[in-house]
């Protein structure tokens, strides 16, 4: 082991040289040996997995039977269970309670007025005793009303109100379970990877078939996509708890359940909240895709306005999603941080519940008044602000005046950064590439990891998607490199200064929840269709975890170590460079890991601007309703990210051991 680490550099150089050599002369060698398969995997040897998968799903939906009920009955039952609370909330805040269907429906009870909804949300903020938050949610929801987004945003809100708690609760339990049982952890972990990395488009059609067309299918897709970070952070948080805390809990006589819910979970709250934050953000991220399968709401508005090239309307609606995300996130964070006070017993009923009673009175009064005063029922239309013209002229101005400058930046980056990477990846013969990946796996995780890397990359070869996979790696790789170069310094800054942290968090939340479609089209207008545009979109979206994890890593360093450094007379600079940064590296690596995951998940979106990689394959499969083809391409994306994930995690673990953190 030590020998190997010592000889690392020599090995590295030998392999690098060999790889480069093969990249330059691979084609000639293949020609000499008369073995074209080295460069290009022969088509007739491609394993037709896609066909089998399509067949299986068809069988599952049409013929599978569990004695008394069919598989479809089962999935429809689940859909029905989720539909009840969803419809209730939807009726309450958006549609009103109706009797009858379609245009015959009569309104029994009108939905809550926009004023009442704002009142309720402010009341919730007030409950947390955070005055700033009250203002925040007020203005956030006022934005929705003023910019004419109220109706759609209430539809979206209903689905979020269902999807987030379900995702958080399931995620928390799965996290706890996998903390308790190592076997379960090993089973769940790859499933999570698949859930997070198979592009949503790949399983959209099967979900539609199983759960029916409409908001419920969209909800389920949202939960599948948004839940994994919760499981991961739960596990991470529980594992990182100081053993002393656990022991003190045991010593004071906790039962197992008490230990978990009274000691471990409360201690890990700060990390858990990162998970909740991610679930909210990712749920809102799915809004666009969910609207493609019948969820309606804000996502539909974004798509429709961008198809009309009404960029202003797209931005307004996109910002509405962001505003909703930030308000909900801050509210949930504040709720967790409420200081539990001892209940005062001898307060009268009226006094204790005075606020709730006031709220209900307010809602009832508004309800009855709204029959006479229509502006109470829905926000008056003539007060709605429309900024379309402003955005349109802004883009036009940039387009006319700065297009050439932007073009030259683009050409430079393309020729000196992106294209060399692309040529290199596509030039190296696949057998050599598989070997290198396996060797890296062996270096970090011995036989097990090496086998994993080997088998997963062979899967990509045998399904005939190698070339597209390489383009995928090129696109994601270049984006991740740039995202890390930008993100990590920002994260360090946020880790040191809390002011910077506050500003950066808002920016990052915005980037992560603003539907990428909103900025994709203006970017296309300025940079044309192509890889560069795709890379910009991927960077913008995947920047967030690089910043967030770095900041978290720097902030959460054991204070005693920093103090020890101070006592030894380190300067601030030395503390940052010699103590904080190295200790934060495992966390930073996890951030990069997440950046890679997000970059891969953006591929489907970049396929919308015409990139030719696995994302496009998934997108084609979706438009041709080819379930198998989509799933196979989706699995290839997932496998790329699993290989990256495993290697980075092993690297991170090694460093942790090296620094004595584990």
């Amino acid at each position, binding site marked *: 082991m030590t020998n190997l680490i010592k000889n690392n550099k020599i090995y590295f150089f030998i392999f690098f040289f060999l790889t480069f050599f093969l990249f330059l002369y691979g084609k000639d060698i293949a020609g000499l040996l008369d073995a074209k398969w080295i460069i290009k995997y022969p088509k007739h040897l491609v394993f037709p997995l896609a066909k089998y998968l399509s067949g299986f799903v068809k069988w599952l939906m049409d013929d599978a039977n569990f004695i008394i009920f069919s598989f479809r009955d089962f999935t429809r039952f689940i859909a029905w269970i989720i539909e009840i609370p969803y419809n209730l909330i939807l009726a309450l805040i958006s549609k009103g309670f109706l009797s009858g269907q379609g*245009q015959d429906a009569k309104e029994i009870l009108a939905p809550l007025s926009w004023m009442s909804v704002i009142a309720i949300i402010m009341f919730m903020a007030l409950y947390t005793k955070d005055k700033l938050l009250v203002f925040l949610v007020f203005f956030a929801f006022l934005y929705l009303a003023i910019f004419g987004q109220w109706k759609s945003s209430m539809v979206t809100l209903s689905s979020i109100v269902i999807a987030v708690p379900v995702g958080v609760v399931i995620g928390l339990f799965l996290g706890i379970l996998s903390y308790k049982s190592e076997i379960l952890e090993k089973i769940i972990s790859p499933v999570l990877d698949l859930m997070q990395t198979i592009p949503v488009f790949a399983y959209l059609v099967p979900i539609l*078939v199983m759960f*029916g067309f409409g908001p419920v299918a969209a909800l389920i897709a949202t939960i599948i996509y948004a839940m994994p970070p919760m499981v991961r952070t739960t596990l991470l948080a529980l594992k990182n708890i100081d053993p002393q805390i656990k022991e003190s809990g045991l010593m004071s006589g906790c039962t197992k359940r008490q230990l978990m819910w009274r000691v471990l979970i409360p201690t890990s709250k700060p990390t858990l909240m990162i998970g909740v934050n991610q679930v909210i953000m990712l749920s809102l991220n799915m809004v666009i895709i969910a609207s493609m399968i019948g969820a309606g709401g804000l996502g539909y508005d974004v798509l429709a306005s961008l*198809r009309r*090239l009404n960029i202003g309307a797209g931005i307004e609606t996109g910002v509405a999603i962001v505003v909703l995300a930030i308000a909900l996130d801050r509210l949930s964070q504040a709720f967790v941080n409420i200081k539990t006070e001892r209940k005062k017993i001898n307060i009268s009923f009226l006094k204790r519940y005075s606020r709730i009673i006031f709220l209900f009175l307010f809602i*009832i009064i508004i309800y009855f008044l709204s029959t006479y005063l229509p502006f109470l029922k829905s926000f008056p239309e003539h007060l709605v602000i429309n900024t379309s013209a402003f955005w349109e002229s802004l883009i036009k101005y940039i387009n006319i005046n700065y297009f050439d400058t932007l073009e030259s930046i683009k050409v430079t980056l393309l020729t000196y950064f992106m294209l060399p990477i692309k040529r290199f990846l596509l030039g190296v013969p696949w057998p050599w590439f598989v070997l290198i990946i396996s060797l890296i796996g062996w270096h970090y995780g011995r036989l097990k990891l090496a086998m994993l890397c080997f088998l997963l990359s062979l899967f990509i070869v045998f399904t005939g998607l190698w070339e597209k996979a390489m383009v995928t790696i090129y696109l994601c790789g270049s984006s991740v490199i740039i995202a890390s170069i930008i993100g990590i310094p920002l994260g360090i800054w946020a880790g040191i200064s809390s002011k910077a942290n506050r500003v950066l968090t808002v920016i990052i939340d915005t980037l992560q929840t603003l539907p990428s479609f909103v900025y994709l089209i203006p970017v296309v207008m300025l940079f*044309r269709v192509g890889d560069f545009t795709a890379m910009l979109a991927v960077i913008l979206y995947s920047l967030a975890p690089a910043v967030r994890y770095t900041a978290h890593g720097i902030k959460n360093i054991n204070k005693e170590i920093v103090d020890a450094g101070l006592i030894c007379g380190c300067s601030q600079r030395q503390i940052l460079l010699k103590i904080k940064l190295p200790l934060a590296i495992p966390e930073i690596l996890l951030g990069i890991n997440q950046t890679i995951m997000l970059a891969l998940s953006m591929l489907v979106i970049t396929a919308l*601007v015409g990139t030719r990689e696995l994302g496009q394959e998934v997108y084609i499969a979706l438009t041709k309703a080819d379930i198998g083809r989509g799933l196979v391409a989706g699995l290839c994306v997932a496998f790329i990210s699993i290989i990256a994930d495993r290697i980075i995690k092993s690297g991170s673990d090694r460093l942790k051991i090296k620094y004595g953190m584990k």
Partner: protein
Amino acid sequence: MTIIRRYFVFLISIVFFGLSTSSIAVESKDPIKLTLHDWTGQLITTNIMAEVLKKAGYNIELVPADYIAQFAGLQTGDLHVAMEMWETTGRDAIDEYTADGRVVNVGSTGMDAIEEWWYPTYMKEKCPGLPNWEALNDCAEAFSIPETAPKGRYLGGPVTWGGFDDERVEALELDWEVIHAGTDAALFGELESAYQRKAPIMLWVYAPHWAPSKFDGEFVDFPPYTAECYNDPSWGVNPNLAYDCGKPRGPIWKVASSMLKDKWPGAYDAVEAFTLDSNEMGNLVAAVDLDGNTVEAVVADWMTNNEDRWSSWIK
């Protein structure tokens, strides 16, 4: 607290009783679900159909859905009617899902889709030979950008639209490079950007759409499409290769779930009878996208002006 109780009571009443108020004029009062997509033309056709069916007494619900993803819903009977399925872009999906009879093709809407290479009029100054396709090679350079120079750059539709542009360029020996946009939003985003700068652009445009009415321009005249041109290499300008002609112009179909015919045969007949022509549609789309009217207003207008037409559909 009364309001809570009221909500509660109504919730229960909805769950247990409140499902339908019945009248017997039509086969079933269950709502027929029509899908809405994200382009204006489709919203107009669907809304016209919905209004007509309402006049016949049917209960209608409009559901936003994706163009392709909706087929899963049509197949299971969760959705019932999709008013626009373009021959040019939806052929594969139609074939795939109508195969087992659970989705049926209800016939043409009467509108024909045009898809072809298109350029803004200001490019005619730089390339006076247009719209004749033979001029394309003379001014390829005028249409080039740094990445494609000296070849011209043609922005094609998403690969999923098909269209055989790569083959066309090869067969007609054009010095052009085909770049595929991923969506039509990206496609028209580039058009708008180029139009603002009066920059060269040649791209895939289709009609009925708002773009040909908003921007001044023309389609390129290729040798007209025939079936032989696509199947038989010896046909046309290039004796060795197929696709040496323009794109086909296909009808826009209506599709429906097979449930529609079983449960609401009258509605099925009405959907089958529905026709509009392309010019009429172009005017309606322009009234919405360019003149800023709402879809509802334009549809209501159409309904009052064409009463004898739609009333014959629901006889």
